[in-house]
C-alpha cells in the first residue's frame, strides 16, 4: 500500500500538484489511523493530507481512481444464468463462430475478463507506452477497444444470437444472455479506460522534467506554449510571495517617520504622562497605481501576468485603478476586484472582446484622449501611472502632448514595453517619442524582467 501511495504522489507531482515529503508522510499516518477499508473515508483522508489548494482537487479526483480504483467493475458470468442445455448450446455456438473475435466473446460471456498482463499488453499494442499526456487517453482507449474487436462486435453478436436461435435456445434465455453481455461490454470498456489512464499517469510521472519554472522565466512571452504558460502561472505565485516579503520589509524599515507628539501624549496617558512609548508618524510608502494595459492579442501574456502580479500584491499597494485599451479605453477595476487574479485576467479579456466585436487596431493616442475625458480624476500627485504596451499605434496620432501632461500631473509615468530597444521606432512604433515623455521605461520581454520591473515599481524608484 505504501508503494502505491508513493506512486500516487509521484503521479500528482507530475500533474503539477505540489506535494511535499512531509505531506506524503502525513498521508501514511492517516492511513495508519483510519485504514483503507472504507473507500470514501480513505479518499477524503488522502485529500486532506495531500492537497492544499482547492483548484488541485480536479487533478486529485482524476488520478485517485486510477491509482486506487479496483481497475474497473467486475464482469459477470453469463453461463451461471443459463440452464445446462443452454450453456452447451452457447459453447457450441461460440465454437462455430470462432475467429479472431474469440477472446472478446469469451470475456464477455464467461465473466472472466482479461488479466492485468493481457490488458497491459493490449494497451501497449494500442500505443499507450508512447503517451504521457492525459489528453491522449481517450484516443488510446478508443484504439485499444478497436483492436479488441469492439467495432465488429454488434455484427458478431447478432450472428451469435441468430445461431443460438437456430439451435433452439428460448427467446427468454437469449434476452438474459444479451443483458449480461451488454453489461459486461460496458464494464470491459471501463476497465480499459482505467488501464489506459493509469498507464499514462505513470508514464507522465516517469518522464524527465523538461519544464522548469526558473528556466522558463527567461523565455520571451511571445514564444511561450500553452503548457509553458501554465507552468509560469505557478511560478508567478512563488514570485508574488517573494516580492511581497521584500515590499513588506521595505515598508517596515520605512515606517519610522517623524516624531508624532499628539499620538505619543495620548498613548502615554496610562503611564501618568511619563513618555514610555514613543510614537512616530507612518511614512506612506505604498504606491497608488493607475494601470493602462494593452489588450491586443500579442500582448496577452504580458498583460495577464502583469495583472496577476498587481492584484496578488494588492496588500502592498495603496490603491489601484486599472484601465484596458485597444481601440478605446475602458475601466476594468471592478472586474479585477471581484475575482481571483488568475481568472480575472481572462475575464477582462473576455469582457473586452465581447464589448468590441470585430477587428480594431490599437489606438493608444485615442484611448489616452478618452482617458482624459472620463477618468482624469484618477491621477493626482501621488499616483504612479503604468502603461503596459508596445507603443505600436497603427499610424494613429501618438498624442505625445497628453502623455507629457500626464507626466506632469502624476508622481511618475512608467512604461512597460515588451519590445527590445532596437525595435522601437520601426514600422508603426511610436516608442521613441513616448520614451522622451515618460519617467522610465522597462523592457519586459520575459517573466524575470517583469518581476524585476514590478519590484522596482513597488519600491518606488
Amino acid at each position, binding site marked *: 500500500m505504501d508503494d502505491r501511495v508513493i506512486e500516487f504522489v509521484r503521479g500528482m507531482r507530475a500533474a503539477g500538484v*505540489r506535494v*511535499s515529503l*512531509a*505531506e506524503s508522510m*502525513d498521508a501514511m*499516518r*492517516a492511513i495508519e*489511523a*483510519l485504514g483503507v477499508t472504507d473507500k*470514501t*473515508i480513505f479518499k*477524503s*483522508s488522502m*485529500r*486532506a*493530507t495531500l*492537497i*492544499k*489548494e*482547492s483548484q488541485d*482537487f480536479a487533478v486529485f479526483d482524476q488520478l485517485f481512481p486510477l491509482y486506487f480504483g479496483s481497475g474497473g467493475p467486475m464482469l459477470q458470468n453469463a453461463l451461471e444464468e443459463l440452464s445446462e442445455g443452454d450453456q452447451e448450446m452457447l459453447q457450441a455456438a461460440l465454437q462455430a463462430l470462432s475467429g479472431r473475435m474469440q477472446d472478446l466473446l469469451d470475456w464477455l460471456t464467461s465473466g472472466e475478463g482479461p488479466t492485468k498482463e493481457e490488458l497491459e499488453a493490449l494497451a501497449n499494442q494500442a500505443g499507450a507506452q508512447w503517451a504521457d499526456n492525459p489528453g491522449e487517453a481517450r484516443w488510446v482507449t478508443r484504439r485499444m477497444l478497436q483492436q479488441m474487436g469492439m467495432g465488429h462486435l454488434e455484427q458478431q453478436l447478432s450472428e451469435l444470437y441468430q445461431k443460438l436461435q437456430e439451435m433452439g435456445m428460448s427467446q427468454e434465455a437469449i434476452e438474459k444472455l444479451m443483458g449480461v453481455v451488454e453489461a459486461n461490454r460496458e464494464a470491459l470498456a471501463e476497465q480499459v479506460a482505467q488501464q489506459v489512464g493509469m498507464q499514462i499517469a505513470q508514464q507522465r510521472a516517469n518522464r524527465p522534467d523538461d519544464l522548469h519554472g526558473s528556466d522558463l522565466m527567461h523565455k520571451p512571452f511571445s514564444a511561450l506554449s500553452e503548457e509553458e504558460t501554465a507552468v509560469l502561472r505557478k511560478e508567478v*505565485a512563488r514570485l*508574488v*510571495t517573494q516580492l*511581497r*516579503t521584500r515590499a*513588506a520589509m521595505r515598508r517596515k524599515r520605512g515606517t519610522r517617520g517623524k516624531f508624532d507628539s499628539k499620538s505619543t501624549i495620548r498613548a502615554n496617558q*496610562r*503611564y*501618568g504622562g*511619563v513618555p*514610555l512609548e514613543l510614537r512616530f508618524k507612518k511614512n506612506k510608502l505604498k504606491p497608488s497605481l493607475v494601470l493602462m494595459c494593452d489588450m491586443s492579442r500579442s500582448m496577452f501574456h504580458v498583460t495577464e501576468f502583469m495583472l496577476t502580479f498587481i492584484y*496578488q500584491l494588492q*496588500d502592498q499597494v495603496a490603491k489601484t485603478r486599472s484601465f484596458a485599451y485597444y481601440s478605446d479605453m475602458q475601466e476594468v477595476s471592478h472586474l479585477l476586484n*471581484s475575482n*481571483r487574479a488568475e481568472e480575472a485576467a481572462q475575464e477582462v479579456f473576455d469582457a473586452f472582446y465581447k464589448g468590441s466585436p470585430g477587428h480594431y487596431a490599437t489606438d493608444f493616442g485615442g484611448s489616452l484622449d478618452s482617458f482624459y475625458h472620463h477618468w482624469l480624476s484618477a491621477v493626482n500627485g501621488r499616483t504612479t501611472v503604468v502603461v503596459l504596451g508596445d507603443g505600436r499605434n497603427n499610424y494613429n496620432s501618438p498624442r505625445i502632448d497628453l502623455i507629457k501632461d500626464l507626466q506632469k500631473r502624476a508622481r511618475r509615468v512608467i512604461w512597460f514595453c515588451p519590445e527590445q530597444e532596437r525595435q522601437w521606432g520601426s514600422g508603426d512604433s511610436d516608442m521613441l517619442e513616448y520614451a522622451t515623455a515618460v519617467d522610465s521605461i522597462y523592457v519586459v520581454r520575459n517573466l524575470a524582467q517583469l518581476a524585476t520591473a514590478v519590484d522596482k515599481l513597488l519600491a518606488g524608484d
Partner: protein
Amino acid sequence: MFKDIADVRERLGQQQYIASEEIGTVTFLAQSLSKPILAEGPAGVGKTELAKAWAKAIGRPLIRLQCYEGLDESKALYEWEYAKQMLYTQLLRETLHKVLGDVQSLSDAASRLAQEEDVFFSENFLLPRPLLTAIMSDEPVVLLIDEIDRADVEFEAFLLEVLSDFQVSVPELGTIAAKHQPMVLLTSNNTRELSEALKRRCLYLYVDYPAQDAELDIVRLKVPDLSPELARQAVAVVHQLRNMDLRKVPSISETLDWARALVTLNASAIDEKTLSNTLTVLLKYETDVAKAKRMMGNSGGSQRGRWER
C-alpha cells in the same frame, strides 16, 4: 476525545452542527495526527461554527484569535503589563529602600537590583493573548485562528512555530511549551494565497455550500419553527440564487437568517410579496436584489402575470 468518524459526526450533530463525512474524517484525523486543520471556503458556510461545535462536543474551552491586517505578536501572543510593572515599582519603593539601603556605590546598587530583575519579568506581569493562553492552559483547549488570510504574511511565518511545535519563545522567559496540545482550526476566506509552509503543516478542508438536502437539514435543525414545506421552498430559492451571477451569493448563515425572518413574519408561503419584503436579508447589494427580483418575476407563468400587473 472522539472514538471514530461516526462518533465525530454524531457529537457534532448534538451541538447542532451537521458535519459531512469529509468534515468528520478531517476532524478525526486532526485529533489522531495532532495536526491543525486549515478550513477554506466561501464566507458563511460554517467554518467558524465548526470550531465552536468541536469545542463543545469534546467539552473543551474555545479560544479565538480573530486576525486582521496589522495583527502582531503583542496582540496575538503576549504583552508585558507596563502599567502593572510601574505600579509595583511605586508600591515596592519601601522594600527597594531596604534592599538598597546599605550600598555604597551606584554600581553596587545596580548589580543588586539586577539580582531582583526577574521579579519584574515573571509570569506575574505577562499579559497572555489568545495564543499564549491556549498554550499555557491547564486543560486542553480548541484554538480557533479565524480568517488567517487577513493577517500579514509575517504573522503567518510567526505562526509556524506555534503550529508545528506548539511552543512559543518569550525572550525574557525562554521557551514555553504547551502543557496540552491544543486542537487548532484555522479558517480562511481565500482572499489571498497562504504560504506553502503554513499549508504543509495543516490538514486541508474545503468547505463549500452544501447540497440542497443537506442545507434543508441544517435549516430544519436550526429553525425548527419553520414549516417543512416552507423550509423546502426557501432552500430551493436560495439554491436558485446561488446559481445566478450575483456580486455576493447568499451563504448558509443568510439562509438561516431568512428562515428566521419568515418565522417572525408568520409567512405562510413564499409569494412575491414576502419575497420582495425579505429579499434584502439574503442579498446585500442593490443590484443583486434587482436582478433577483427580475429572475423571480420571470420564473413560472402565473407568477409572471401577477408581477407585470
